């Protein structure tokens, strides 16, 4: 069962996390994402966490690791839509998630990946 749909749009992978991720699911998500990025020549990954009310230190760590992994695979990861309460909690926990790219929403995330118009023709740019 794949609990997290990884939506491919052009050469961008869009993931919207809608449910609370428990630890095991988070690790599986990390693995599947890395495989997909490597196999399908993904250039950018957008992880939307606007539905998450709780992000604990473990999930914060996972997000950070995903960003680092995709960066090794030559894809950039942007985490978008973090709620104020989540941001405050993470800061209070001392996790500043260095090097993690963030954006306000999916649209801003796409812009940060340098995409103004989605190219869905399937041709790699």
């Amino acid at each position: 069962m794949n609990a997290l749909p990884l939506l491919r749009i052009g050469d961008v992978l869009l993931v919207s996390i809608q449910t609370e991720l428990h630890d095991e699911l988070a690790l599986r998500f990390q693995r599947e994402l890395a495989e997909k990025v490597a196999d399908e020549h993904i250039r950018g990954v957008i992880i939307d966490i606007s539905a998450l009310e709780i992000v604990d230190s473990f999930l914060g760590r996972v997000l950070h690791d995903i960003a680092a992994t995709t960066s090794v695979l030559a894809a950039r990861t942007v985490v978008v839509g973090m709620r104020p309460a989540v941001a405050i909690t993470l800061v209070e926990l001392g996790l500043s998630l260095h090097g993690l790219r963030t954006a306000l929403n999916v649209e801003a995330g796409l812009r940060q990946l340098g995409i103004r118009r989605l190219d869905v023709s399937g041709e790699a740019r």
Partner: protein
Amino acid sequence: MGEQQRHSGAEVASFLLEREAEIIDSWRRLPFFDSGDGDQAQVERDCGAVVRALAEAVRTGDEDDPAAAPFNSLRGLFMELAGRRTRFGDSASEVAVEAGRLKGPVVRLWKSAGGHRGVEQTALLVDALGTLRVAVMEIAVSTSAELIQQQQEQLLELSTPVISLWRGILAVPLIGTLDSARSQIAMESLLQAIVDQRAEVAILDITGVSMVDTMVAQHLLKTVMAARMMGAECIISGIRPQIAQTMVQLGIDLEEVTTRAGLADALAFALTKIGYQVTAPTGAIGR
């Protein structure tokens, strides 16, 4: 209440009521009854009300209970008199000292009136006047506590406006001393405003902040980090030279934070950041 005591109470009460006019006359010049509008008739009515309440208190044996009905009936009057003094900056003890001045004239009158003045009756009278003072003090204390609470709430309301400077640019001008509660509120309202207005850049302006210690700096850094995690850039502006020096001496590291000297510089930076170019029309005078 024993028969004897009831008798003494009645005696003191009738003394107070008989001598009401003289007592009023000795009280009317006291600053305690000054309501600020110079209305002598009103002052006399107030004095009369206090005398009658005292008489009632000694008659019913409530002379040492400031919460009893006779003293309670004076609450409105005391709130007005003591409240007014408190708002003008008198402390509760100053108000109580003034209320204590009511005692002298009445006791003198009591002694000079002649006749049989027993120790018990005198004690009753002094007790009642002392309780009056306690009642006044209580009200003065509660008024000042209310006043402080009210002012604190007003201050919190005042302290954290989030201003939209441009579409996508927010500013929070922080003023005064920052404590934990205020920093927390500023942080929360800024982050919420970032979401609501889809702001890409937020400016924390600390021009009006008188002092920055490690704790305040910590709060500022936390706000910057939280905003960054939400996908917005946060700039700190308005760091005065003196404060910059203090921060350096305290070892506060602002290396990762974008800082600008003034709000204008921060706005210029923010505009550039979201893709605007600020230029003067040709021929314009200025820098």
